């Protein structure tokens, strides 16, 4: 095969396509990437999720070779690429605005990399046809770039990289420019392509839904550091920090103080004076400030007092109904003026609900989380 031009001296034991060790990059005083270490198993879909300005683009550009880290190491298939220029690295990148060459046709765009890699010209046509078929654009080779729709450009940008069989494909928020419907389709399409090519994808995004739907592993990044790395389920159900809890998924967030802790159940009094039970994994002394997170879908609405014993049960008044099909929610308010957003199942039981009615919301302590407020108060501000 001809695709081994990059992959020299591959160690059969190395199971990671990409690994970083204590990678740092500073711009003046500002630490864009601050001691990040991770490794990605072969063929995984790895997402880096974070708000804008968290350093994820800088991290990706260091992986591609457009920026040099101040310290740390980048290993691709087990060997350091720190001194390898971007055009020699076995990684390819799908740019945020795709960066397809407008002066070339689709086929010429794909052939560009093949030529540079020294693939014999007679093989180009079949390789291009093959990759275009895989991205479901057969026969598009002669089209000009400006004749393509947004989704088609996306596929060409991916085909242009994957035809080179890179060890790692880097994607820099490529779905950002698409409209919602197309974005939903492309999420599934990207996942399918990743399976089909069996290439390691590193995907950066600020959109948690993109990261959750597509990824095997997600790293949540904040202020240049990885807050938590895990499967989407782990991040959603077992966030390790307040930042992850607030950034991944929707939550009702309340500030409060610890009243007592017995085992992993913490009794919290919120700033409004509501007493609630919550799960807390770390020891928290009484009187210490905490942030409490309750997901909208863990709370149950009932028109009468629940029969079964619930850890938390509040009598509330409906403020407004937020209809959004399957994602419908209802905003309720307690006597203490604490506003909660509760998921509203679209079943017949709740058809009759309307603003102003009194209902009960209840949930178990094990279904909500609290974290001690960290010394840096800005942390939970997200």
């Amino acid at each position, binding site marked *: 095969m001809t695709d081994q031009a990059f992959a020299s001296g591959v160690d059969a034991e190395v199971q990671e396509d990409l690994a970083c060790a204590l990678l740092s990059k500073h711009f003046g005083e500002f630490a864009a990437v601050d001691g990040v270490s991770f490794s990605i198993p072969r063929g995984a879909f790895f997402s880096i999720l974070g708000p804008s300005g968290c350093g994820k683009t800088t991290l990706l550009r260091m992986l*591609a070779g*457009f920026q040099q880290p101040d310290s740390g190491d980048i290993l691709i298939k087990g060997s350091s690429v720190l001194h390898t*220029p*971007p*055009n*020699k690295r076995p*990684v*390819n*990148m799908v*740019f*945020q*605005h795709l*960066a*397809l*060459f*407008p*002066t*070339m046709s689709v086929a010429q765009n794909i052939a*560009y*990399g093949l030529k*540079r*890699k020294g693939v014999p010209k007679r093989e180009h046509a079949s390789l291009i046809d093959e990759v275009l078929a895989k991205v479901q654009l057969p026969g598009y080779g002669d089209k000009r770039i400006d004749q393509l729709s947004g989704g088609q450009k996306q596929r060409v940008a991916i085909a*242009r*990289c994957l035809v*080179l069989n890179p060890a790692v494909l880097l994607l820099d928020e490529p779905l950002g420019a698409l409209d919602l419907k197309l974005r939903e389709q492309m999420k599934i399409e990207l996942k399918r392509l990743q399976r089909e090519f069996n290439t390691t994808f590193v995907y950066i995004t600020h959109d948690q839904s993109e990261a959750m739907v597509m990824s095997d592993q997600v790293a949540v990044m904040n202020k240049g550091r990885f807050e938590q790395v895990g499967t989407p389920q782990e991040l959603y159900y077992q966030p390790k920090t307040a930042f992850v809890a607030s950034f991944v998924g929707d939550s009702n967030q309340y500030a409060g103080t610890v009243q007592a802790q017995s085992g992993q159940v913490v009794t919290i009094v919120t700033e409004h004076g509501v007493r609630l039970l919550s799960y807390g994994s770390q020891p928290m002394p009484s009187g210490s400030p905490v942030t409490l997170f309750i997901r909208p879908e863990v709370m149950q609405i009932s028109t009468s007092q629940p029969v079964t014993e619930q850890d938390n049960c509040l009598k509330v008044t409906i403020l407004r109904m937020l209809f959004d099909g399957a994602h419908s929610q209802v905003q309720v308010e307690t006597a203490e003026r604490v506003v909660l957003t509760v998921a509203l199942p679209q079943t017949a039981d709740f058809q009759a609900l309307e603003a102003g009615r009194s209902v009960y919301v209840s949930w178990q302590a094990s279904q909500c989380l609290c974290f001690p407020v960290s010394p840096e108060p800005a942390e939970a501000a997200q």
Partner: protein
Amino acid sequence: MSGEPGNVNRTQYRLGFWLLLAPIVLWLSLLIILPHIDMVLVSLRERIASRQYGFSLSNYTAFFTEPLYWNTFVRTAVMSVIATLLTLIIAFPVSFYIAKVLTGRPKIALFILCLIPFWVSELVRTYGWMILLRETGLISGALQWFGLADQPVEMLYNDVAIMVGLIYTSMLFMVVPLVTTLDSLDNSLIEAGYDLGGSSLHVMKSIVIPHAMPGIMSGCIVVFMLTLGNYLTPTLLGGKDSLWFTEQIYTQFITRFNWEQGAAFGILLLVLSSLIVWLGLKITKQSFTRVMS
């Protein structure tokens, strides 16, 4: 009457259209088209007796039979093409540096530095070069002072001096369109070029230059026209032997008072410049409308 407003509006619209068009039509017809028609007519006549003229092609045959005219013509064309290409070769890296490497304040500063010489008249700028290059000039003096020459060196009045002057005069007209087109090149295209395995040379050849081609061509056309029609620089820096075709036209009109011959030369120069521009566009597969937009 109620059905009329549409018509009134339309008449007003048409009137406005013609009023807006009037200056350009006047300018074109009075200053460009009429003089050129007159030039063609003048070039096609011959003086038979005092104040008596007849139709003749003799002005054109004189051009083709007299080797001096013909040689000057070809020489002017070749020198202009060379000057244009050299200007491009010098201006491209400068423009690339301004457009793609620098950002913020240094970028503006360097761009203005390219512009500043043009605040001075071309005549003064050319005299500046004469001060540097003449026998008693700065460079000659410096060479003697360093002991590299044992007598004054005359660097004026040769083709190199003409070329230096022409390139210097033309730089800005090449830099401006190049910086504009290179500025519009998305940096991520260059990065993608590297990312897909291209070396600097490949990225330049297959991404930067194709993108900049309209700018390159528009810069080249402007510089070529300016150079071909330049009178001052070849005359001052090249002396009386500079053999620039505009000088021949000047001589015919002013010295010889042979307007018929001068007009024929003028028309020939127009044909030549149009032909070379057309050829340049054909070779590079660019369209005139795209280059000029």
